[in-house]
């Protein structure tokens, strides 16, 4: 696609792209004789041409180098030569030392919002993603999606060539076809052109959209995301008279009331919110914050609530109305929920330091009331701030329904789908797939040949966010620059580049982004650009708060009449695959969902009481009927779910996700309507069949044992009795590593699990193997319930290897394959392991994982390019387990030795610790009484799991703190 190359690079690339590796090398000499190759070599290596005589061997050596580079360049869809060396490398050390990984700061999108990340690049291969401590949406932590994005980058199912009606075409053919079409459209001012794209926060993309709109003034733009914030924004318009985004400051909040949604998992600032809330809980000077969660489906924030009120969606509006009325009048209206007085009291007591937050699935009336309550409490300015929308939409941008109407009316002659997968995610009442087929010319830009690609005339591969330039704004408006962390693994265009081409710009991703910021910064651009790339954020770019005030004429609408019959069906993004974007990601598919611990599929979540009414048990199929559309799904009985409601998670039942994600679970979009995308009313009936639901945890109660301990705010745990041991103590002269996990901080988000998987090359085993109980995660998060199943207490407990001081596994291994290290680690020597598995038998924590089969070579396993070279890939037949990230200890020790200084506390950060948003996991030297981990282990909340067995674990837990219940 790049024009005016000095020689026929395209033909050369085409040739190389069509060659496979081994043939390439065999045909080297033959290839070297071709005139265009000679020209290429001359251009790349003028020295060769200048040197009068070059012996054949030297020529071939240089040739092989250039062809290897050429091979890489051949993968690039056309922007080769424009990829300047990666700029940011300063997070580990100045300059690049071979073998030492580079760290590159960039941003990753989730639902259009950016999260800052640092990508570890080993010899040109990105291998691990960490949070960017400077980025407000990360603070160094990551969520599961950011962790797993690296696997998506290497996804072999990503599209690598343009398709025309399903037939692969070259990029030249695409250009040849599309250029005249574009020119015609320019002449026609874009008449008949419709563009559908997900909402974006990228300043560059927004700038390019604006440019394209000038060029195609008659084109219609549409915005669609299945996970939309329409209700909240509509409420903002009604209550404040302006479109705003809300940013919460949980560090300031003394009383928090959440109404559905999930502050700790689904909001764009979820990592920050979880971190802030925990920081607030850790403040000794102030009383513990109070958290109330009113919700249909148990959420992560709900599990941490002091009081959870399970409520059907249809009852939420009345609940909020009563709450507002109680706050207004001082006494709860007759017949309102018994908890309302308590909540209102807590809110009033906290005053402006209180916060009410509603999830995106709530209706605009609920959001409006919430806005009003927050305004009345004075929360705006302390715990909430309104900012200009981070993903702004021009007023004339249409919806998906508008697009459907236009196509149906025959007004759309050209359709461009810029990212997203609307043919799959569209509500069922808009049959977008067949509508798109009716458009005379349609084009889809996407990373996969997905459901949308299948119905469009053209499909253009989109580059992965880690392969291309761009920028993204975070939930609070802070801009993070996006830069490629690798040479493109597959040829593709970013949305920026595509729109840039449409708007007549050159194909130069970096230039487009630079253009945006050169305009914004003016003088001193170069310096600021480099700094922003290095930091990953544009400093001081957070959106300033805007003043909002209740419109004087606003009055709460009278509550809509709740339907009296039927069951409420709510939809929610899936904790593992989001809206379906991550369906082809094996790590995420195999990640046990926080509450159900389900893997490789979704389920209809129902309350135990609902299950009793319909005579269902987990795994029984039900037929859901919503507005005449039906869906068959297995149920999962979720304690704490509201009765009379069923929750469906989106993102499954993909038909064209790829080899990993196809045909997993059921497609909840099939009964979603555009009118009521979040809550619908329907019927369910037992289908009389079973659909297996794979879950990694089948027992949910602690059975009266003190596995997760709980204390009241100022209460101490009784110290465990120290037992004697037959074996002498190990001496530790240097370090003695240990870990403390604060169960009061753990929100069960699973980030640690995926971080561990990515860091330690942990295999994906596939659904059949997990069903047999053979998942390989070194770190699991156990979830226990206590109390009444209708509204239980939920406890999360991450369980890595305990690295016991008196390790039971060590004495039973016949071949000494698991041994104690001089620094207290319980080391696993893979080479020595013969696979008796007796160590697992003797491990009371059952944290050891066995390679029952060759899991590294299956269809679902991660590609070897992603392998962390510092961690052995385990063979079939050996045991493996958490090593406390021994490779990170080694790296830190080497660094310290090079600088001739002792290791500092906090220098060794395990992968799980690094990912944790709430800093629940702390690792360090327990020989050093001043280290953070030592101090935590001195805490009166510290206890050893199963300490009575005298294993003396090095991983200890800090008891969870719970307020005594007010309602008794």
């Amino acid at each position, binding site marked *: 696609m790049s024009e005016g190359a000095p020689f026929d690079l395209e033909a050369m690339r085409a040739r190389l792209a069509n060659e496979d590796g081994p043939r390439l090398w065999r045909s080297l000499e033959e290839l070297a004789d071709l005139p265009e190759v000679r020209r290429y070599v001359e251009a790349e290596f003028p020295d060769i041409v200048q040197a009068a005589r070059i012996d054949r061997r030297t020529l071939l050596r240089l040739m092989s180098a250039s062809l290897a580079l050429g091979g890489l360049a051949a993968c690039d869809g056309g922007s080769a030569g424009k990829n300047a060396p990666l700029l940011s490398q300063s997070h580990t050390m100045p300059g690049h030392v071979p073998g030492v990984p580079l760290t590159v700061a960039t941003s990753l999108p989730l639902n259009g919002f950016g999260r800052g990340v640092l990508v570890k690049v080993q010899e040109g291969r990105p291998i691990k993603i960490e949070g960017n401590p400077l980025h407000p949406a990360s603070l160094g932590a990551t969520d599961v999606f950011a962790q797993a994005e690296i696997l998506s980058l290497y996804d072999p199912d990503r599209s690598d060539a343009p398709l025309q009606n399903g037939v692969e075409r070259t990029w030249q053919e695409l250009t040849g076809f599309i250029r005249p079409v574009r020119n015609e459209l320019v002449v026609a001012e874009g008449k008949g052109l419709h563009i559908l794209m997900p909402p974006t926060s990228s300043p560059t993309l927004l700038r390019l959209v604006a440019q394209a709109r000038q060029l195609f003034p008659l084109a219609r733009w549409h915005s669609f995301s299945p996970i939309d914030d329409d209700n909240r924004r509509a409420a903002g318009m009604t209550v404040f008279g302006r479109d705003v985004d809300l940013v919460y400051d949980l560090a300031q909040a003394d009383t928090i009331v959440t109404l559905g949604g999930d502050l700790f998992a689904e909001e764009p600032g979820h990592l920050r919110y979880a971190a802030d809330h925990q920081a607030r809980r850790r403040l000794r000077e102030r009383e513990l914050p109070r958290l109330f969660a009113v919700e249909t489906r148990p959420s992560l924030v709900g599990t941490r609530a002091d009081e959870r009120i399970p409520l059907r969606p249809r009852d939420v509006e009345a609940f909020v109305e009563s709450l507002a009325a109680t706050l207004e009048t001082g006494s709860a209206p007759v017949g309102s929920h018994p908890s309302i007085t308590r909540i209102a009291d807590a809110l009033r007591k906290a005053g402006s330091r209180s916060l009410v937050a509603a999830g995106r699935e709530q209706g605009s009336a609920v959001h409006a009331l919430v806005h009003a309550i927050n305004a009345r409490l004075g929360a705006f300015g302390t715990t909430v701030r309104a900012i200009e929308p981070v993903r702004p939409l021009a007023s004339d941008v249409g919806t998906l329904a508008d697009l459907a109407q236009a196509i149906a009316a025959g007004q759309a002659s050209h359709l461009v789908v810029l990212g997203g997968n609307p043919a799959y995610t569209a509500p069922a009442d808009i049959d977008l797939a067949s509508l798109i087929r009716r458009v005379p010319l349609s084009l889809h830009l996407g990373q996969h040949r997905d459901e949308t690609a299948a119905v469009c005339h053209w499909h253009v591969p989109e580059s992965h966010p880690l392969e291309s330039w761009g920028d993204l704004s975070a939930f609070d408006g802070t801009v993070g620059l996006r830069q490629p962390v690798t040479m493109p693994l597959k040829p593709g265009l970013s949305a920026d580049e595509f729109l840039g081409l449409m708007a007549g710009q050159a194909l130069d991703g970096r230039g487009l982004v630079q253009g945006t910021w050169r305009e914004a910064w003016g003088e001193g651009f170069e310096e600021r650009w480099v700094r922003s790339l290095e930091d990953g954020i544009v400093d001081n770019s957070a959106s300033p708060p805007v003043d909002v005030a209740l419109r004087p004429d606003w009055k709460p609408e009278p509550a809509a009449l709740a339907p009296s019959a039927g069951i409420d069906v709510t939809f929610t993004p899936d904790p593992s695959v989001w809206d379906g974007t991550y369906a082809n990601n094996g790590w995420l598919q195999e990640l046990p969902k926080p509450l159900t611990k389900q893997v490789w599929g979704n389920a209809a979540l129902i309350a135990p009481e609902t299950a009793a009414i319909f005579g269902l048990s987990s795994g029984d199929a039900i037929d859901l009927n919503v507005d005449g559309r039906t869906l068959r799904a297995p149920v999962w009985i979720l304690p704490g779910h509201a009765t009379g409601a069923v929750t469906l998670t989106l993102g499954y039942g993909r038909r064209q996700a790829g080899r990993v994600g196809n045909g997993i679970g059921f497609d909840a979009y099939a009964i979603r309507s555009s009118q009521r995308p979040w809550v619908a009313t329907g019927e369910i009936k037992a289908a009389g069949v079973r659909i297996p639901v794979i879950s990694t*945890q*089948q*027992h*949910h*109660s*602690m*059975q009266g*044992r003190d*596995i997760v301990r709980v204390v009241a705010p100022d209460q101490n745990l009784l110290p465990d009795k120290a037992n004697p041991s037959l074996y002498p103590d190990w001496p530790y002269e240097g370090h003695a590593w240990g870990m403390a996990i604060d169960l009061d901080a753990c929100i069960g988000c699973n980030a640690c699990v995926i971080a561990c998987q990515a860091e330690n090359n942990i295999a994906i085993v596939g659904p059949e*193997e997990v069903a*047999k*109980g*053979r998942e390989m995660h070194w770190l*699991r998060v*156990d*979830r*226990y319930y206590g109390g009444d199943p209708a509204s239980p207490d939920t406890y999360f407990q991450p*369980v890595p290897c305990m690295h016991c001081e008196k390790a*039971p596994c*060590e*004495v*039973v*291994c*016949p*071949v*000494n394959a698991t041994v104690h290290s001089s620094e207290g680690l319980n080391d696993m020597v893979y080479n*020595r*392991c*013969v*696979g*008796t*598995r*007796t160590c*697992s*038998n*003797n*491990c*009371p*924590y*059952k944290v*050891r*994982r*066995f*390679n*029952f*089969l*060759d899991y590294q070579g299956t269809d679902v396993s991660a590609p070897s390019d992603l392998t962390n070279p510092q961690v052995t890939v385990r*063979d*079939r*037949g*050996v*045991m493996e387990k958490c090593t406390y990230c021994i490779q990170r200890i080694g790296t830190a020790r080497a660094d310290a030795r090079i600088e001739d200084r002792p290791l500092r506390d906090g220098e060794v950060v395990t992968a799980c610790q690094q990912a944790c948003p709430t800093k629940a996991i702390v690792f360090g030297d327990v020989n050093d009484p001043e280290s953070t981990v030592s101090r935590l282990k001195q805490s009166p909340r510290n206890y050893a*799991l*199963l300490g009575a*067995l005298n*294993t003396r674990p090095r991983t200890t837990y800090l008891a969870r703190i719970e307020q005594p219940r007010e309602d008794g």
Partner: protein
Amino acid sequence: MSSEAIAVTTPVAEVPLSRRFGRVWWCALVVSGGLVLLLGYTLVSVTILGVGIWGVNIPFVWGFDLINYAWWIGIANGASLFAAILVLRRHDLRTAVNRFAEGVAFFAVICAGIFPIFHLGRPWLFYWTFPYPATFEVWPQFRSTLTWDFWAISTHAIVTSLLWYVGLIPDLATLRDRARRKSVQRIYGIFALGWRGSVRHWAYHQRAYRLVAILVLPLILIMQSTVAFEFAVTLVPDWHETRQPLHFVATGLAQGLSIVLLVAVLLRSGLRLGRYIDEEDIDLLGKLVLASAIVSGYLFLDEVIAALLAERMAQEAMLNRMTGDYAGLYWTAIVYSVLIPQLLWFKAARNSTIAGVFVGLSIGVGIWFDRFSIIVGGLQTDYLPSISRNYQPTLAETGLFLGTIGLFAALLLLFVRFLPVVSMFETRHDEHLEKSS
């Protein structure tokens, strides 16, 4: 050797020396040979693909492998303990049953020995449990019960085979002497180690035979205890019991005796050896089996009492074995290994071939279920409820088990075909004693 003495043992010696052996034998060999092929197939596939083809998982890292191992070891131990005691006590019964009791023990050890090797994740490295001078000077972990087990089973195999072989030497010489063909004569001759029947030979032989028999006694206790230690030393609540070795030794004895009874009854009717294995022998054997079954019954009771006295986790674990998902295994074990053998209180049952086969099988089956209940049912209750799962054996595991049964049967069949199943020299000795008295 008097001609009369030759005549006494002719039917025994005729069996291995005859050219034809009847259809039944051939059919049985074909069936068991088929099972041996199945064994080969399952072993090759588990070596190539890994133990993942079994139903094992975390926490059930051991399934049929250890169940069957413990079961075969039980048979081997019971049978060889029985044989050794008979030799040492010079009991009359030894004439009749010693030879095949020793054989049963040896073949069972062979079957048992397959499992600890092939259940490994990387079976080709099994020799790492052996303290050989490796380059890196890594030694086995001597605190591990699996290392003890390695020594126990190799010692067991050596001693059991010695007991069997030493007892065979004079009879091999007899076969050599009576063989009609040169080649057969040569083969028996090699294994007879130049036995000429001199008084000195007899004196040495008696000493050696009794010495090996004495060796068996402590070994049996050690072997079964070591198997039991593999469970008892772990922290698994149901396994962590000092009574475990006793349970394994005593129930293993019952199981070994029952298999001896089963084989004795089958041989007696199959090879028409009523004269050598007479009714009295079978009656005595039946009483022994009954006694051992009663001891097993006591141990099942003891298990419950011990659990009641133990801490809460052990109580829960025992209760779960009796009432949980795997309760069927536990109760089947009790019915088959304790209740059904009570039939042997009746003399008629003790003398009946069918009852002998039935009870012999029943105890074997019962103890197999007991091992299943201990290894799988016992593991179900652990300290962290989050890890609780279930175990279901796969076809590959079942095939492996059937395969070892086939191997056992095939070895027995070859044994009865090529070697004297009743000790000829002991028989002659007995006849001689009878004559002289």
